[in-house]
């Protein structure tokens, strides 16, 4: 089975975000980037499927600027066979454009399964997997927390409001991965050294038309200071009143 894993680099989750001078993007100078955490589940699942079948290939792909090579190298080090950078000059935020670039490229390679993270933790758009599946004409199951493969078909389990849904799914498919699906591995030294010899392809992304535009970004208002309602057991009624006021009770 040939598997494509779509990955994205995102600012490290402990980054103090600053808005750039244009008011529409974030300041990237001094920001450390890392692999989107949900994409790690996607990559791990792909590697496990390949190990289970003892056949096929895992290709990681990203749409983004050249610096994304670091995250692709990391994926190669963990065990992916090939990495593809669909390069852009800008930071990519438009799910329509990214999906069009990925679909255009995926159509040119053998691919039975596309694995994605459930969402990128920077823009939280949550639209790429379904958008991509639509463009490819693939089945799509999102936010999968358990995936089992038998006789060429998948059983995917996902949490829905108050219940667990079990979905049967044939390839080709796009599956987006949720936390809990697996425990991602760390790269080891051998993997890092082997990664240097693996194929790495860089080509310009075929970005389609823009689907949306960010017109403004603003930081959330600073959190208001806490309120001390009193001290000791005597303050409990005041505390309850204050909690009722904020509808926490």
């Amino acid at each position: 089975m040939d598997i494509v894993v779509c990955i994205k680099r995102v600012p490290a989750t402990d980054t103090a975000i600053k808005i750039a001078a244009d008011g529409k993007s974030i300041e990237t100078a001094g920001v450390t980037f890392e692999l989107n955490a949900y994409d790690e589940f996607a990559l791990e699942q792909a590697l496990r499927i390949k190990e289970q079948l003892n056949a096929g290939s895992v290709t990681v792909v990203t749409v983004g600027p050249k610096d994304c090579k670091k995250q692709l190298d990391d994926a190669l080090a963990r065990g992916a066979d090939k990495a593809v950078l669909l390069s852009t000059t800008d930071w990519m935020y438009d799910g329509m454009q990214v999906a069009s670039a990925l679909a255009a490229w995926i159509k040119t390679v053998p691919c039975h399964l596309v694995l994605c993270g459930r969402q990128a933790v920077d823009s939280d758009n949550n639209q790429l997997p379904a958008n991509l599946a639509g463009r490819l004409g693939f089945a799509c199951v999102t936010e999968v927390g358990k995936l089992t493969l038998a006789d060429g078909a998948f059983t995917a389990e996902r949490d829905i409001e108050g219940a667990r849904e079990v979905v049967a799914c044939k390839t080709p498919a796009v599956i987006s991965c949720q936390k809990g699906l697996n425990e991602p591995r760390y790269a080891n030294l051998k993997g890092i050294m082997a990664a240097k010899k693996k194929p790495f392809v860089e080509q310009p992304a075929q970005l389609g038309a823009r689907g949306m535009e960010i017109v403004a970004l603003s930081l959330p208002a600073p959190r208001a200071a806490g309120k001390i309602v009193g001290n000791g057991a005597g303050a409990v009624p005041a505390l309850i009143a204050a909690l009722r006021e904020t509808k926490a009770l």
Partner: protein
Amino acid sequence: MARRIDSYLKDLIPAEKLAFYEAVRDFGDSEIAPHLLHWERSHSLVPDSCIQAMGDMGLFGLPIAEAYGGQGGDHTDLVLMGLALAYHSQAVAITPGAAISLGAKPLQLCGTEAQKQAHLPALAKGERMFVFGLSEPGRGSDAANPQVTAVKKGDRWVLNGEKCWSTNARWASHVVVHALTNPTGQNGKRSTCFIVPMGQKGVFYQEMQGKKVWEQSSTGSIMLENVEVPHDAILGAENDGFKVMVTTLNGGRLFIASLALGSLAFALDKCRVYAEERLQFDDKPIGRFQRVQDVIVDMDIALESGLTWLLHLCRLYEAGTLSREQAAKIKVECSRRASDLIVLAMEICGGVACFDEFGLIRHHNDLFVTRVGEGSNFALKDLIVRPLRQA
């Protein structure tokens, strides 16, 4: 927050070594740091699950050749692992650290092909661990003439005596015992090393209780009572055991220096952040006081110079040109610098430094081991001074 140490390493090592360091660093952040306090407060050793995870990551096989199932790395990789893990815990770092630099290393350096085939693949996976059995209750710095004896009986040897301070004894499959075999020989030619299975009849292990440093690391005492081993259990040449031990210690001392620098790197980040957060006098950060800045600056200088020196010596080690004095000097300097500075680091944080969850007290205690372990600093100066006294 980006670590200060990372900004130095970026310029000191090639990209793939940096990627490896970062992988171990991330492992430490996710798999070690969140659990440390619990391990400490429950007085537990490194849990088996953590050892297993380090094994899965290939850490126990770092500088072991791929042909023997290892990762095919070098001493720089080992030292990078030390820096990355010791940032949180020297005790965790020394577990694969000693397993490699004191356990697998003598086998790699002095073992026969059959011995390597028999042990290296399992050592590389962390399924087996060797203990470095040099120190004894009565033989610490003066280790050349062990009180543990080995006597030839036909084609076998019979070992008697006690080893102590045996790091990793809890998990060990074998102990490399340095034993007296030729009491009347020339000094340095009186002892032999034997590979002894921990499960062999007459071998008894007991964890040394009450140790307040490297608390999650296993330190055992190992009794040997009429333990019989075959002749091919000898590691290296007969009556050349001390050479096996001292050759091993060269690389081990570089690793100890990496532990000291890992602790220093943690202390530096902790203090520089805390000094800007802690407001005193007019509600302004204590980081504005020059006496506070002095300590932070000195830590920074010690870290950058220590790293540059250490990585240089790792290259000499790989080239086979590292001298015993060089290995001793960096161990002495990094351990004493870092442990002197950490007292000041605690002082500039004030009372909060007393708490285990603040982290500095752990590194303070652990840094003591770096002064004494693998050769006490004062004793090592005897070695360092030798070339200086030659006209």
